[in-house]
């Protein structure tokens, strides 16, 4: 899947949850991605996470742990 698009979409989710306390935001992001992204999108996101891409919002990177299969 298009990495740029996935990063953008994940960052938008993070920007919404950023209003919440940190732990809740991280959990909210992980839960949202798990509930609404199909497995191939999540797999592509994991590749981006593993590369520690800094264009990914910090909260998404922190949510990455919870997105492991």
């Amino acid at each position, binding site marked *: 899947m298009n990495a740029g698009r996935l990063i953008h979409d994940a960052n938008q989710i993070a920007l919404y949850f950023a209003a919440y306390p940190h732990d809740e935001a991280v959990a909210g992001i992980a839960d949202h991605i798990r*509930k*609404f*992204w*199909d*497995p*191939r999108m999540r797999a592509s996101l994991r590749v981006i996470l593993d590369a520690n891409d800094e264009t990914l919002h910090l909260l998404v990177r922190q949510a990455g742990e919870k997105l492991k299969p």
Partner: protein
Amino acid sequence: MPILKERDLGTPAGKGPSAVRLRVDGREIEVPEGTSVMRAARLAGIDIPKLCATDRVKEFGSCRLCLVEIDGRKGTPASCTTPVAAGMTVRTQTDRLRRLRRNVMELYISDHPLDCLTCSANGDCELQDMAATVGLREVRYGYDGARHRTHAIDLSNPYFAFEPAKCIVCSRCVRACEEVQGTFALTIDGRGLNSLIAASQNENFLDSECVSCGACVEVCPTATLNEKTTIEHGLPDRTVLTTCAYCGVGCSFKAELQGDRVVRMTPFKDGQANHGHSCVKGRFAWGYATHPDRITTPLIREHITDRWREASWDEAITHVAERFRDIQARYGRGAIGAITSSRCTNEETYLLQKLVRTAFGNNNVDTCARVCHSPTGYGLKTAFGTSAGTQNFDSVQAADVILVIGANVTDAHPVFASAMKKRLREGAKLIVIDPRRIDLVETPHIAAEHHLQLRPGTNVAVVNALAHVIVTEGLVNEAFVAARCDGGSFARWRAFIGDPANSPEAVADLCGVEAETLRAAARLYATGLNAAIYYGLGVTEHSQGSTMVMGMANLAMATGNLGRAGVGVNPLRGQNNVQGACDMGSFPHEFSGYRHVSDDAVRALMSAAWAVPLDSEPGLRIPNMLDAAVHGTFKGLFVQGEDIAQSDPDTQHVTAGLAAMECLVVNDLFLTETARYAHVFLPGASFLEKDGTFTNAERRIGRVRKAIEPLAGMAEWQVTMKLAEALGYREMRYAHPGEIMDEIARLTPTFAGVSYEKLDRLGSLQWPCNAQRPEGTPVMHVEEFARGKGYFALTAFVPTEERTGQRFPLLLTTGRILSQYNVGQQTRRTGNLVWHDEDVLEIDPHDAEQRGIRDGDLVSLASRSGEIALRAAISDRMQPGVVYTTFHHPHTGANVITTEFSDWATSCPEYKVTAVDVRLVNGRSIWQERRLHELEAFGGGLTPAIARHSRRDAP
């Protein structure tokens, strides 16, 4: 059934609290206080003659035919304008009354043509009926009244004729235009015998303010206002009661036929969504159903650059099954999917999502709600626990303050708009939040208290500012919040929203709305007794669409405006069955009734019923399907009744995805823009050709009934069944859509009490309909929210990334107009083209002048996504810096301009905010030229209909 004619009780129902007893012609009757003598008599089965009275409008008392005698009262009062009184004794038939009525009829007929045998209303004329009723045998005044007989017939409206010579000046049309439609386009011009009905300033109907809703035609007692189809074909001989296939109001209609020919569609007076009203689309624009462009034979081609060849149903379906299985063998089970249609029935969308989850073996199913109201689903489910509007339409009649946000009601939901305007004329206050000055802001006898003409993209900042005022000025309904809402989430939200960063003063410049106006609007909403929110795609189609929906839900909860008539948070759904398509499990992450695919208990239930294991992972959404197609992991798509190549944003991205598919199947009425990229075309059936149900914006499930046989031999539910068989899935065999509804009811708790038998008996049902609420639920969340306690989500304002700058200095927002519907594939094939035959760019006079643009000039509209050319329409509806267009015509290609940005939660596209440049131009854009070239080269095909289609869409 034979012709269905609703009983006319002469005047509207009395609404007084107590009952009144009276005697009419010796019969004892009890009716509510405020009832007219005419209505009381008719309820008792005594039909007093009448001409100017009809129960669709208020009593008027002009025709003098309904005179009665009442003991103790002088003279002969009109029964329509005389309210009942306790102990009243009324006589409706005496020699004196008979003489008077006959004389009245003589006067009418002295100035009326006696061409009954050749008149288009012959057999359906109340004047004719009354002449017979009163026993008219002569006209002592002669037949030369002749004041009106020479007046020309006005044929300007494409659908009805106005023949002044037949007019008896009963004023029903004038009153219907005022009271029912609320347009005030008609009046009586002149005095005495010279009185005549006039449209606007004595203009023809087409040039007048008339919106062609048909209310005047509906009430006309003679042939004066009559459908052209009736004039041409004569009267229908049977009625099929059904539901309109246009917008989310879901009007109940009578399809009136002669054999297999639809002669007219008339609104059903007892329809619970529309109460006998209609708009130009449902009432008149149904001719597309038998348009010669309809494709009625399956078509196949190897490559999208090939010409089509006709195929049998068996060959086409087998071909699709083989291709899909081959794709899955080569690219994996998840490489195919489907898109369900909001123009198809509940039963059909249910079947298609079932096909995907069972026969395809994945969850790659999505629906057009993705691009319209998916944020409503997400936002309202988060706040209240269910993905639907809270009220029935009738609730608006109890509203004291009506807050309309991002919804052009009079154009997009005209029949509901008429109901809303009625309430506003009665004195309810109106607040409009919209970047355009929509008609509702100022319309006859209605003026908004506040029009918050915000900059596109700042909805969330505005709703936060309104909430800030409510929280900081002590306007919170503390008792409601304490009793009904989640305390923890409220406390956190209160602290968040009270932050000065959310104050009107802090956001005024950003939004373009003065702080004091924001404060006044918030105070009015919070303190105006029953306050109701109605919203449309101007809320949802933003990068923060879901946040905005939750923001509005917070506003309603904080002020206690939920759980009773007159309040609520009400999405106005775009397409006729968009609510139903969502309810039926068309989203990739949930089964029918909004239950997530990862829920083991639900999956076990569905799996047992459908006899296959089911995937617990969410599938792909439409934009993800297209991305995956470009990426090479998604290769086959079945598109039922949607035209994503025209309706979805960033056309060139959509078509790149479609072109990357190995097998695109389109199941539709016409060869659409999407069909240009298809390998197989399966002909669809219009709403007149099938049985089923639609669910409207107020959760109302209404029956669709087959009026004519499917032109192509099969309706969509049958096509899906056949494809399931071809794919080897055996659990999809139904003899009738009613059996599909039975399965839906068995597997979906909110539909548990729904059946065709009950729908036939009660007319319609609003879900939830189950053991607790066997007759449905007009207003939701009355005692508690569906989720228990209402949840206050945080709604921080995150500006869209779409920004204006030097290259693209203006903001484009897109929408719809009254006469056209969605991608226009239906309405463009009707007389509605007379009102809108091309998409135009509305631009503020100042912006136009700066660019040297005059009204009607061809201009280029360019964004970072693409460029098109269209005509400019200079309009003071717009604010400087904002332009507007529609997406009804494929050759314009409005969605070439819109971008890939979308709602953070649901991927609903941001149609409402695109940075653009506008400049004068000489000809079509490169995209438009290329489209024409492709149509010329590949669009043609085997049948004349295909060739016609190609020509038709070319400008």
